[in-house]
């Protein structure tokens, strides 16, 4: 399934990446107003059929696709065609953007001010911009930015405007619509709004997909959406959602356009605006509903320093090359193309695989600041009694950071490491700017919790958890770099510990081939964590090979013809890597007969208890994101079944056999195994 076009570098060290330019520099030296009013004449799609936003609506309503579905819906429901049509038209009104250059100019002007206040720099790879410009000229383009902040899409439009590129239309969640003025402003800057869920609503789906396809096919504008579906609260990439990706690939698969260009964009924030909100949200304080007044309250963030942003426009990916040899396009030959039809299995597999590749492409070009590595180290060395580590002195931290930097580089991380200055000194804005996280966890001797911690132990725990989760959100930005080797490290640990239990200790742990247990536990872990991390379905062997390759190259493992040895100096690397996953491993160990809705609160209560009694070591286990992923994994692995119907629909039923075997493997490497098993 390896797709050359998306992911081609066997050796991450060889990856050639473009240089960045700071676009704020210009803004600080010349008039924002003139900038906002300057001549804007972007390169357009060569086969563009010019059309207004209003004309677009007509095209959609007149399309064979929509007319067909309207007819169907009318037949099924007995509502007249005219009424269904009116409904479709209303849906379209609710959805449609009203992209307007004047609004964009207004935003551009405002954003200049805001960005300059918030950020030190906004760095963009201009070669990527050039590639994008060419892509826009040649083919319909889909922009796929990573999603960490509300800022993302304003930022994207701002950048495209700055570089004189065609302004995108952006799929946005309906929640923005609540904010009347802002909602309308966003509409006029190119956002179109989709309901969060419209499960079985055929008409809605038809209007929506036809709207997107029409814009794409006609080359009206680049279509932008977030593969991850929603903002990642953890700074880890989220499992991609396939709905929109399916829609934008459809015109190619059905031959309506020659190709579609997908452009992954990686937006790396040194510090995310929503940082503090996210941690609370993950701990169960519900997310505040987006409202205009809320946004204004957010004004106080203006006075803070959010460091810099790096935006990397990735290599455009041709859907045509992606699909070559994977999809039989002939499958659409025997029915009229406007009749909605479930595409073949090959299409499903293809879109899913493509989605993962694209998210990985986003991950790969994420720029990592030193703080990301520091956070990883600090989290592994939390002060005694609160976690498995002992805390670090500044010196130790500095020394370890240098070590980790080299490791990360070897693994192909895209590091932004200012100069050669030692980490921890003033050159790292991240460390200073993120004072919330800085408090509590970092350096030895620091009080582990905020002053006046007179509250109940549970409260104190939660307070500490906020800090840890914020810190984790930094570590998470770099997880993808270490993920595969870390899975291998964990697998090696499991394999060797289970061997210890069963037979005399072997001379060394070995790798797959002659020692299938390592590979098996690797695949097992990979499987368990496939909701947690971006692991392309069906790529276990490649991932394993990549892990072996990286660790081999780094010298941590020595690959013989037959087996793989952990070298002396490799122990440190492997220990670090294995520990990186421990919070997740631990977090995945808990559940009993609960309904899905109850799941998160119940697990939370349980986890709190375990943490307070010291049986669980990682407060990260409190993250609702992690718990949801764990549940999804358990469901997927049949360890837990959701009961349908009966007295208590939605109740989760535990499959003891599967859970036990899961426990064996997960717990085998954890000190808390007993406690977790006891609960099950």
């Amino acid at each position, binding site marked *: 399934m390896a797709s050359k076009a998306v992911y081609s570098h066997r050796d991450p060290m060889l990856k050639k990446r473009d240089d960045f330019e700071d676009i704020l520099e210009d803004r600080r030296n010349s008039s924002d107003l003139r900038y906002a009013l300057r001549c804007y004449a972007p390169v357009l799609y060569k086969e563009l059929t010019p059309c207004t936003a209003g004309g677009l609506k007509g095209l959609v309503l007149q399309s064979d696709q929509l007319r067909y579905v309207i007819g169907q819906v009318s037949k099924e429901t007995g509502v007249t065609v005219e009424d269904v049509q009116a409904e479709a038209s209303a849906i379209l009104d609710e959805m449609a953007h009203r992209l307007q250059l004047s609004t964009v100019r207004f935003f551009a002007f405002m954003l200049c001010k805001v960005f300059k206040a918030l950020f030190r720099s906004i760095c963009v790879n201009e070669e990527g911009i050039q590639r994008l410009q060419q892509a826009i000229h040649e083919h319909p383009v889909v922009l796929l930015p990573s999603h960490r902040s509300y800022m993302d899409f304003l930022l994207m439009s701002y950048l495209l405007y700055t570089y004189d590129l065609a302004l995108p239309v952006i799929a946005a969640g309906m929640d923005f619509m609540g904010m009347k003025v802002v909602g309308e402003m966003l509409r006029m800057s190119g956002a179109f709004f989709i309901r969060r869920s419209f499960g079985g609503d055929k008409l809605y789906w038809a209007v929506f997909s036809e709207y997107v396809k029409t814009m794409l096919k006609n080359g009206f504008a680049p279509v932008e959406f977030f593969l991850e579906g929603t903002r990642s609260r953890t700074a880890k990439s989220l499992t991609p959602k396939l709905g929109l990706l399916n829609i934008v690939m459809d015109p190619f698969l059905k*031959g*309506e356009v*020659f*190709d579609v260009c997908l452009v992954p964009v990686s937006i790396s924030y040194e510090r995310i605006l929503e940082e503090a909100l996210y941690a609370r949200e993950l701990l169960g304080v519900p997310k505040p509903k987006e409202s205009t007044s809320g946004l204004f309250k957010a004004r106080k963030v203006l006075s803070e320093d959010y460091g810099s942003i790096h935006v990397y426009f990735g290599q455009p990916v041709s859907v045509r090359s992606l699909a070559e040899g994977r999809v*039989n*396009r*002939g499958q*659409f*030959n025997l029915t*009229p*193309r406007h009749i909605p039809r479930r595409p073949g299995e090959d299409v499903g597999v293809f879109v899913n695989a493509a989605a993962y590749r694209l998210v990985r492409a986003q991950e790969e070009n994420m720029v990592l600041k030193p703080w990301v590595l520091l956070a990883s180290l600090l989290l592994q060395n939390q002060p005694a009694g609160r976690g498995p580590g002992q805390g670090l002195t500044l010196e130790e931290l500095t020394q370890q950071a240098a070590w980790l930097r080299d490791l990360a580089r070897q693994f192909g991380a895209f590091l932004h490491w200012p100069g050669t200055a030692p980490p921890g000194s003033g050159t790292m804005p991240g460390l200073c700017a993120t004072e919330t996280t800085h408090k509590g966890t970092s350096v030895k001797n620091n009080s582990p919790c905020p002053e006046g911690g007179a509250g109940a132990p549970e409260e104190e725990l939660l307070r500490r958890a906020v800090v840890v989760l914020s810190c984790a959100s930094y570590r998470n930005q770099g997880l993808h770099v270490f993920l595969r080797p870390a899975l291998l490290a964990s697998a090696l640990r499991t394999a060797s510990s289970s061997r210890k239990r069963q037979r005399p200790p072997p001379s060394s742990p070995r790798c797959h081939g002659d020692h299938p247990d390592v590979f098996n536990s690797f695949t097992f872990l990979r499987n368990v964590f496939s909701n947690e991390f971006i692991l392309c379905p069906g790529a276990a062997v490649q991932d394993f090979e990549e892990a072996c390759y990286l660790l081999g190259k780094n010298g941590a493992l020595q690959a013989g013809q037959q087996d793989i040895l952990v070298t002396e100096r490799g122990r440190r690397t492997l220990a670090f890597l294995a520990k990186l996953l421990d919070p997740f491993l631990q977090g995945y160990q808990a559940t009993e007969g609960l309904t899905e809705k109850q799941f998160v609160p119940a697990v939370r209560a349980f986890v709190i208890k375990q943490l307070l009694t010291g049986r669980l070591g990682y407060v990260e286990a409190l993250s609702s994101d992690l718990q949801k992923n764990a549940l999804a994994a358990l469901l997927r692995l049949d360890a837990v079944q959701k009961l349908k119907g009966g007295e208590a629909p939605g109740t989760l039923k535990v499959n003891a056999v599967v859970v036990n075997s899961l426990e064996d493997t997960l717990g085998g490497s954890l000190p808390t195994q007993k406690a977790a098993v006891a609960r099950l």
Partner: protein
Amino acid sequence: MASDSNGGSSDSQRIAQHRLSVIAGHLQRPAEGYTALLAAECKAQGSKPDVSSDERTVPRRRQEIMKWNGWGYSDSRFLFNKKGQAEFTGKRYRLSGMIIPGLRDWMESTFGANLQHKTPAVPVLNSSVVQPPTLNEAFVGELKSTGIPFSHDVEDRVFRAHGHCLHEIFALREGKIGRIPDMVVWPNCHNDVVKIVELACKHNVCLIPYGGGTSVSSALECPPEETRSIVSLDTSQMNRILWIDEKNLTAHVEAGIVGQDLERLLNESGYCTGHEPDSMEFSSLGGWVATRASGMKKNIYGNIEDLVIHVKMVTPRGVIEKSCQGPRMSTGPDIHHFILGSEGTLGVVTEVTMKIRPMPEYQKYGSVVFPSFEQGVACLREVARQRCAPASIRLMDNEQFKFGHALKPQVSSIFTSFLDGLKKFYITKFKGFDQDRLCVATLLFEGNRERVLQHEKQVYDIAAKFGGLAAGEDNGQRGYMLTFVIAYLRDLGMDYYVIGESFETSVPWDRVLDICRNVKARIVRECKDKGVQFPPLSTCRVTQTYDAGACVYFYFAFNYRGLADPVHVYEQVEHAAREEILANGGSLSHHHGVGKLRKEWMRETVSNVGVGMLKSVKDYVDPDNIFGNRNLL
């Protein structure tokens, strides 16, 4: 158009003459005064043929009039004269002897070709590179005793070893000869064929029927793995019209007759078949049946399967034919459909009863310019919906439109360069149109004069709804002329590093635009990927309309300077283009057939069971694979 011949001609001659100009649309050859009957009748033939003329286009020794390594007549070719102007030689065509001022410009700007960079063909066939024939002595011995002429002369054999695919002609130009037939036989009639097939079965000799040699599917290529003696059965001497039935409007014709002779001879009696494939100067009736050919005027006359009333085919099992000439039958699957498209794998078509029509009293060319190809296609679709397509209606894309202009001969224009001509054309007529988007449809109306004029109006009215403006008869006529000279032009291109080919498909209406766009773009992309140094010419036209779809032709050519193996690159690109066609809902072929070139896609095209059916027919009819050209399956 054929220029009027010998001054004052009689009335009947005038009609015939006029008709002639309709047929080939390009032949300059004057109507010969015909002699009443052909003396040389087949020995086995009891009766004398009804219609005949001693003037036959195709002699046994084709090399006497045709090129051995290129298209068409030896005397007709494009070349750049000493002044560097393009010129078409000979006397046969309307374009013959004329200067075509725009062609050089067009070739240079379209392909980056250069008169300094020549790639001449080897001038003569070097017989030493030809494998000596593998003769089956017993077969030859018995054949001799029948008196049927045969030959194992090198030139005769080489001539029958190929069709007109690019790779076939390219190899000849380089003097490369692969497996070729070991001998050639010229049966004179049906019974001769029966004898030859019997002998071939008896002595296990491989037979390959040869009609006009215009195949573009590698159908005539000898399978290199064939170890038996290969005999090319050349039908060209079976070229008589045996009778004409005016009551039923049918004619019974020997299958080796080539299109231009068939039309000319029928015209002499005031009739025509109306079947005019672009290759009609050289392709044969048997070849049409064997490949399911399609003629330009099928809208009036139908394709070959609509024209055939009765067919006689000699197979290793004996002769297959129907017992009557009923216009339609319900007698199980139509056995004609085993024969139509059999591509020489089952037997030899020897005689065909065909529908004929009185010659049309009036014909008129026309053309319409559309602002864009999209609008042109929409117009053709509407014309098809209203079922009012003229005898022929073809829509060229923008590139072909320009190409058409490049071929304007000097006399008709004062412009020195083709671009000047183009500019003038826009300025004078089509101001609002974008010269890089507009496209042209060419039309041919035929029939009763009043009805033609009525019909014409109807079509122009529809065109107007799609933004089409009438652009005159001249442009229409030139469009049709282009069809006949394009094969000659390819040879010119090959003299200057340019290779190319056309291929076709049929596709439902709703996919026409998509397939045109995607296949053209695919060609461009593949060329780039394969290292072609110059942007290729990648163009298309819609050449036929049907109720449910259209026939689309793609033309593809590129400058191969800098490529080590241009033919291989060419084949890869064509292969990719075919994949693209299939992925976009196009058929494997509308009329060129499958041959060996497109065999690999047969299974997906007709399903496993379909292939099984065809196989079982082959196994029954020809268990020893006497007709061993290995086409189709």
